[in-house]
């Protein structure tokens, strides 16, 4: 697959990124480039720094050294500029994090209305469309707590999409779900990938990686150890650590 778009910079570039939590070196000299329309799956053992990597891209975590560019521009440090950048980078969390005091529709329209200044009627119409698109149009007026985990996660995806993000970050979006709900979320994500959304997805769902990803990035102990196309990676991992990791998750 070819993703280089003429004259346009890659959407996300991390160069030489280092990050510590206290004495713990959680990101070690990380370099990663995500092209427009590309879907990158990040896998690796627990504690290897996948979430941290994901969260540095919209600066939910700051970095110590190195540089991160989104759509060609270095990440703003703080303030209005940072808020503006975050509005353009969608994020979906493992624990959904829907606004508990807002209805499903309000969850989806709050960002557009308050951050983008979209009129309520317009935001509502768009929000209902998006909820329809993720298959939960009838739940618009319920509160998050009244929905199943799979439904909540689809609302979270719709909420992120409502901001028309350039890139979407997913941090283990199906890890908190009961097995029977995983697929409904993965289907929505696969459809998004097909529509050309640029995505960085931390997940251990290999079916999804095979179906939707252009590239798998394997992390261990704060470093990117290996990058490859999904088929290649799962069939012939090059590093010992990736082999070891895959042998553990494949036995399940």
């Amino acid at each position, binding site marked *: 697959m070819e993703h280089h778009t003429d004259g346009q910079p890659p959407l996300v570039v991390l160069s030489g990124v280092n990050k510590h939590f206290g004495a713990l070196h959680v990101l070690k000299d990380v370099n990663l480039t995500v092209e427009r329309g590309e879907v990158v799956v990040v896998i690796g053992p627990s504690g290897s720094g996948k979430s941290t990597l994901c969260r540095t891209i919209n600066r939910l975590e700051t970095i110590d050294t190195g540089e991160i560019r989104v759509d060609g521009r270095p990440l703003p440090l703080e303030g*209005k500029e940072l*808020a503006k950048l*975050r509005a353009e980078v969608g*994020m979906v969390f493992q624990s959904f*994090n829907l*606004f508990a*005091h807002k209805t499903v529709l309000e969850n989806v329209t*709050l960002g557009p209305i308050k*951050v983008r200044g979209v009129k309520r009627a317009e935001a509502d119409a768009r929000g209902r469309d998006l909820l329809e698109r993720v298959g939960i149009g009838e739940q618009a007026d319920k509160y998050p707590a009244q929905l199943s985990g799979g439904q909540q996660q689809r609302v979270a995806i719709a909420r992120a999409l409502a*901001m028309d993000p350039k890139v979407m970050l997913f941090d283990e979006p199906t890890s908190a779900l009961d097995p029977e709900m995983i697929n409904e979320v993965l289907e929505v994500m696969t459809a998004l990938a097909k529509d050309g959304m640029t995505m960085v997805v931390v997940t251990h769902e290999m079916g999804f990686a095979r179906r939707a990803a252009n590239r798998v990035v394997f992390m261990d102990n704060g470093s990117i150890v290996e990058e490859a196309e999904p088929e290649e990676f799962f069939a012939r991992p090059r590093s010992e650590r990736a082999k070891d990791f895959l042998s553990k998750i494949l036995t399940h």
Partner: protein
Amino acid sequence: MEAVVDNLDLLLEGFLRTLTLTALAATGALCLGTLVAAMRVSPLLPLRWAGTCYVESVRNTPLTVVFALAVFGLPKAGLGLTFFQFALLALTLYTGTFVAEAVRSGVNSVAPGQSEAARTLGMSFPQTLGLVILPQAFRNVIPPLASVFIALLKNSSIASAFGVAEATSRMGSLIEDNPSAVLWLLAAVALGYVVLALAASLLFSRLERSLAVAR
């Protein structure tokens, strides 16, 4: 008993003033306390610092001293107000610290994922706080806030010592005039406070229930 019945109008007038003082101070303290709680969780160090200084200094001063500072200190600084206004100011400043602490604990009880989700959408700090965090924080702290406001109702009786003719002060002068009816007068005024406090409790538990349904 007669002393109570004969002077019911004076007592009721006193309670009306107690209620006015309490309601105004509660409103002021709620605004001030929320603002200070917001300062104390803000990313700006000087704001956090100012909020902490206010809370720790005023909360740890006896209310009577806060009153005295307002009534005797502020006129020296050139601020001329009525006794009622001084009392209102003292009660608001004092109660504001307790509201601030209650609201701050409410803010801390909201899951961190909520503010992360808000920031991720591009909301500013004030938007995150005002649209996502505080509405949820308030629901979590209605019972402690009710206690703060009931304490305020009772604390307002200190105003009687600073020239405000509220319920307790009316009781004092009525006892002077009818020394034999002292127990009746005390009981009547105590009952008045209890009734007001119970009404406040009821109001808050209703509020709590109506907000809980909306989840």
